[in-house]
């Protein structure tokens, strides 16, 4: 069974588009957060949470055609696919199309379209519904449109599992290539900002500042008080390493191993910690890598009181304080379905720039782990990076990305 190589990336975030701009801003400690007065008609002035990481660049500039897409999540997905294909230096030919697939993750998908569709039913009844809005409101609409746009006729799968959506899609795509069900797959995730999910997360007490203090995302900090929503999209071009070599593709890294586990009790920190521990061990075991061989850990931590503690405990249990740890999320926000693929791109940037980005805004780490703070740390970029994705429910997935040979 061959290895699965990453040969292209499509990145769209609040701190930049594509690897160079994204990495430059990441390593110069830029933060993409903005204070908002209102968003999508939602007045924020009366709320404690008023910050979000939104993409400023007009999406039309990133799309392959002048087509207008009804939903922002679909537009983001198509733009990220287009960027990944260009970055990978590949065009989907009619011959390649049946073995060229797509696996995409999103937690909320086309929620804005869902809301518009539903509002019309509430106002006008079933007969007044809009068929076009409905077909653009499915969770799998973004990949269906991407498949049509780029002639991706092969393996085709959409995952929706909160903050694990993108990680599951990447695992799904990796498995499909390993099983020879596809030769190349665009895999990753996207999430568009939606006022509805903002309000749901706010009411659930997830968003900073859930203690009434300063509104800021401080992963692993003792004084952290919740996370800040972001939007983003990230697609990776995955291919069988032999196929990549055949076309002399630029290999950015390889998927070395995958592990996943659930928490029995989402309210129990020790249960979540145990799930993260099993997930990390699973990824290392499937790659045949010892904890001491890991270069650094790209953590999932986003400022959540429960989850950050659980992850820190799990990391400390498996690695002690011997391996550097960082969470890049304070730079570009909690992008939910896009988060895992973006974290993989952070690992790729760390190989290319031989630097580990810091965990922004964190001054007092909550555990005895080697947390990189304040400024980037130089490293050789020659060891695998372990990427954690942890959902607020305590579900965890870990992906080990190995550096290019």
């Amino acid at each position, binding site marked *: 069974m061959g290895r699965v190589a990453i040969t292209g990336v499509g990145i769209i975030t609040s701190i930049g588009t594509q690897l160079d701009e994204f990495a430059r801003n990441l390593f110069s400690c830029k933060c993409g957060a903005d204070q908002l007065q209102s968003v999508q008609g939602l007045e924020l002035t009366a709320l404690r949470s008023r910050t979000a990481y939104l993409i400023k660049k007009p999406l039309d500039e990133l799309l392959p055609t002048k087509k207008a897409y009804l939903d922002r999540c679909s537009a983001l997905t198509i733009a990220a696919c287009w960027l990944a294909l260009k970055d990978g230096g590949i065009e989907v030919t009619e011959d390649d199309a049946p073995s060229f697939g797509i696996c995409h993750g999103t937690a909320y998908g086309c929620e804005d379209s869902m809301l518009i569709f539903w509002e019309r039913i509430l106002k006008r009844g079933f007969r007044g519904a809009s068929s076009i809005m409905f*077909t653009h409101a499915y969770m799998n609409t973004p990949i269906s449109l991407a498949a049509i746009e780029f002639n991706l006729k092969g393996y085709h799968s959409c995952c929706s599992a909160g903050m694990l959506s993108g990680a599951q899609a990447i695992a799904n795509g990796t498995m499909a290539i390993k099983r020879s069900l596809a030769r190349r797959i665009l895999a990753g995730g996207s999430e568009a900002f939606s006022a509805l999910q903002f309000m749901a997360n706010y009411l659930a007490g997830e968003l900073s500042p859930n203690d009434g203090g300063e509104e800021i995302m401080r992963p692993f900090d003792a004084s952290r008080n919740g996370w800040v929503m972001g939007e983003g999209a990230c697609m990776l071009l995955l291919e069988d390493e032999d196929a990549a070599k055949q076309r002399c593709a630029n290999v950015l890294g390889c998927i070395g191993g*995958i592990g996943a586990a659930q928490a029995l009790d989402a309210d129990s920190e020790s249960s979540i910690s145990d799930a993260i521990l099993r997930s990390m061990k699973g990824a290392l075991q499937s790659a045949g890598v010892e904890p001491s061989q890991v270069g650094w850990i790209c953590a999932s931590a986003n400022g959540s009181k429960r989850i950050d503690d659980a992850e820190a405990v799990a990391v400390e249990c498996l690695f002690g304080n011997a391996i550097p740890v960082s969470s890049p999320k304070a730079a570009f926000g909690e992008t939910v379905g896009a988060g895992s693929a973006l974290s993989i791109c952070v690992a790729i940037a760390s190989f290319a720039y031989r630097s580990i980005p810091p965990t922004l805004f964190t001054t007092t780490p909550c555990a005895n782990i080697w947390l990189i703070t304040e400024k980037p740390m130089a490293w050789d970029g020659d060891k695998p990076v372990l990427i954690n994705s942890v959902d607020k429910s305590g579900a965890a*997935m870990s992906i080990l990305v190995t550096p290019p040979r």
Partner: protein
Amino acid sequence: MRRVVVTGMGAITCLGYGVESLWRGLIEGRSGISRITRFDPTGLRNENAGEVKEEVLSNAPLPDEDIDEATLFAYLACLEAANDAGLLELSDDERMKVGLVFSTNFGGAGRWEEFASGWLLGQQVNANQFEQFAFDFAARYVASKFGFLGPMMTLSNSCSSGTSAIGVAMDMIKLGMADIVIAEGHDMLSRFALGGLSILGTITPELIRPFDRRRSGTIFGEGSGALVIEAEEHAKERRAHIYAEVMGYALNSNAYHLTAPSKEGEGMIRVLKQALEDSNVSPEQIDYINAHGTGTQPHDPEETHAIKAVLKRRAYEIPVSSIKAAVGHVMAAAGSVEAIATIKAINEGVVPPTLNYEEPDPECDLDYVPNVAREHKVNIAISISAGIGGNNSAVVLRRYNGH
């Protein structure tokens, strides 16, 4: 690479709770489609659907928590499948390794409607309603109820979802990520989903008649199907009953249009060929096809054309049936429930009928097992699914021969 088998099954549909209720209803030629009672269906193209009625639920082992119907269906199907496979007798450590691949088109749609309506009308809303809408809520709920804490995925490949879940579960086992994975599909009838499918014209105002000349659309249903997918050597070691072998599968996209079928069934032809190739099975070895057979004008000839293009002469020699006129099109659960019906056909030597089939269509000229179940020996069968967005899936199942 490891062989993969099915060691447990569970289902809930409008024909009742349990695989036996489903199978009895299917072979007796009964349809569970009736008027929707959960909400006022006035204004829909058809006020009937394959609804799971209160009397079915009142006799089922319901959990204590207040959960939406979508999660409830998933829980009940998994409970039956887990019991059937003896998973609840496993040690805590063994259960912790059991994986879940769930699938849904609309998640906890009922709770989302409550949240979104409250939001739009300026009323107080509850974060828990939104949380229960999360597409992975059902998998997380089942994981915590039964202690199945292995790798988990939640797919949403529209109406191909249930079949996709079986395939991805098989991948997890073949690649050594797990020894046991529950592959599940679930969906509930909601105003959101039926409102959209109605205005789209997918729903017939009359009877659902798959492959019949007078077909004019489908009728949707709700429920869940769950299959325990397991590594053969693991199942043998713990002496589990093996229902069938999962030989292979395929997923793909027409890459053509969100709702219109591909030209000449090109996508479905490819998915059938790929599934046979992944299974290392030739067209001549296929004994039965459980078709997607929705009863819509464009879909049924496309599927027929694809079956003929791939199976050639064999297509005319074997039965091809659709169970959608009995249980409705149960959306993400369709692939799971239909795989269960296919496995029952393999084990019982009886193929379920296509109900309401009366007038042959020259474009649909295969043997659709009209209205009455038929005895027929099945060694290898295919179950086909397709969905909005233009995706297709197929899974190949085989009688388990013990080696």
